[in-house]
């Protein structure tokens, strides 16, 4: 590993992708992921790669589809409204079992929404990246270092399971700079073989098809079920999380990405007030770290989920806890970021036995949902 460099999250994502053997980037400008594309436009020509500014988000994801089908590690990046547009292409990639990296630097929505940090695309990422039965693996890094690391892992898992992978970050992580130790560059020769690729059979093998169409219903059912068998394998082996001071915690905070940083600050402040609180930080959102939440149910008296949304990941926590403990929720949305002190106030109430479902109105800690 090399020395630490100071980089924006967006730039670290880009550089890490190049080091993971990605030589094809297809994108479309949108705030707040702009630096990523700009970085790629500077770097790709220098490493013999392709930076292509597509005519639309839709075209960009379909270029990833084609490039990945051709056997190359390919990626696109965007922010929430753009990722909605990519939904079609992601669905086709799932249906054709194509790897490929999609980065979503989330901003507030729905619609044009805003450009400030948000986590309101959790459902889109974990439930409905596009039409049909299917999932993508979703990483939710919380530091610039983890952003770089997750890109390397995303390409690796994408090849291993033949699935698109999404890195779900937000404007705050994309824009911030932190020191990062970049992964060692992979040699292009060492990348996993893709014997299924449509790169021209050269008369050396049978022809390959990359396709998501099954006109015979039974064939489609078989294909989906085979894919879901793989999903079970992913759920069993790829759940990732970080636990912080959960061993003796009465209240377990659950937060991911940038919100987990605020939660971590809140844990420190609350501990000083004598509240026994810990943090579970999902690193993969799909597969959701079910086992980590399950393991906390016995010790915890209550859970508190904090996100930058009206409450999306909280559903997954409630599904695991399944009524055995109260699951409270506290958040801001629309680009407002909660302060650690606000989370501490919410923690105090939960620690005192209250169950809250709270999104402050105009910064006031009243106004339960």
């Amino acid at each position, binding site marked *: 590993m090399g020395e630490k460099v100071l980089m924006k999250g967006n730039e670290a994502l880009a550089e890490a992708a190049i080091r993971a053997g990605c030589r094809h980037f297809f994108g479309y400008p949108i705030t707040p992921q702009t630096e990523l594309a700009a970085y790629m436009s500077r770097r790709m020509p220098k490493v013999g790669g392709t930076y292509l500014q597509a005519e639309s988000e839709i075209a960009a994801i379909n270029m990833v589809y084609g490039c990945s089908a051709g056997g190359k590690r390919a990626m696109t990046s965007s922010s929430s409204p753009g990722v909605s547009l990519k939904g079609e292409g992601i669905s086709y990639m799932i249906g054709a079992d194509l790897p490929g990296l999609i980065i979503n630097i989330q901003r507030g929505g729905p619609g044009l929404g805003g450009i400030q940090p948000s986590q309101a695309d959790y459902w889109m990422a974990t439930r409905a990246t596009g039409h049909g039965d299917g999932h993508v693996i979703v990483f939710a890094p919380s530091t610039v270092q983890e952003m770089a690391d997750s890109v390397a892992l995303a390409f690796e898992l994408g090849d291993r399971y033949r699935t698109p992978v999404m890195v779900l970050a937000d404007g705050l992580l994309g*824009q911030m700079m932190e020191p990062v130790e970049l992964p060692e560059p992979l040699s292009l020769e060492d990348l996993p073989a893709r014997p299924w690729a449509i790169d021209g059979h050269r008369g050396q093998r049978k022809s390959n098809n990359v396709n998501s169409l099954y006109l015979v219903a039974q064939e489609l059912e078989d294909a989906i079920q085979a894919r879901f068998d793989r999903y079970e394998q992913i759920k069993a082996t790829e759940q990732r999380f970080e636990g912080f001071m959960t061993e003796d915690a009465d209240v377990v905070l659950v937060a991911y990405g940038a919100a987990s940083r605020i939660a971590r600050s809140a844990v420190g402040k609350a501990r000083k007030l004598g509240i026994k609180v810990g943090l579970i930080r999902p690193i993969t959102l799909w597969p959701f770290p079910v086992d980590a939440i399950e393991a906390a149910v016995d010790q915890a008296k209550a859970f508190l989920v904090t996100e930058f949304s009206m409450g999306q990941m909280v559903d997954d926590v409630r599904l695991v806890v399944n009524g055995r403990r109260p699951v409270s929720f506290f958040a801001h949305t629309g680009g407002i*970021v909660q302060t650690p002190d606000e989370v501490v106030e919410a923690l105090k109430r939960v620690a005192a036995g209250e169950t809250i479902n709270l999104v402050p109105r105009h910064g006031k800690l009243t106004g339960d949902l």
Partner: protein
Amino acid sequence: MEKGSNLNIMVAGFGGQGILFAGKIVAYAGMIDGREISWLPSYGPEMRGGTANCSVCLSDDPIGSPLVTDPDVLIAMNLPSYEKFVDHVAPGGIIIVDSTMVAGFTERKDIQYHKVPATALSEEHELQGLANVILIGRLLGATGFSTREVCELAIDKSVSAKHTDLTAPNKRALALGEMWEGD
């Protein structure tokens, strides 16, 4: 404020005043010192002339929220920024203002003020456009968050390769701010 203590800094002013660059010098210095650091810009549709601010955290522990909401130090380069953040500065904190740009403001009693006529000083010393770095020099003088040597290395890293001719003036601006004793 103890030397080497954790420091949450807010640098704020107009776009074009070098707010983000100023924050970058502090961030690089922290990194060279081997500390945990984060640098977070405000971002918005305005490219120039709008308000800009930048959160920098220096810490010996992993940094939680990188968004500085109650800064230990506020560096204000215009009046709107001062007014926006003054009430959020932690009690006992420091406010450094460019007094050429910020005048006629109400002062808090529990804050240590450094009023540096940075813009005027920059013109006087032929350091046009480096009021921001003069104020970082003052931050260094006031808090000892790092050393002159490290901050000079940080300037080397912050100045883009296309403008290496600007490193020397930046370093002069830093020294000017650090040694500045008016007020």
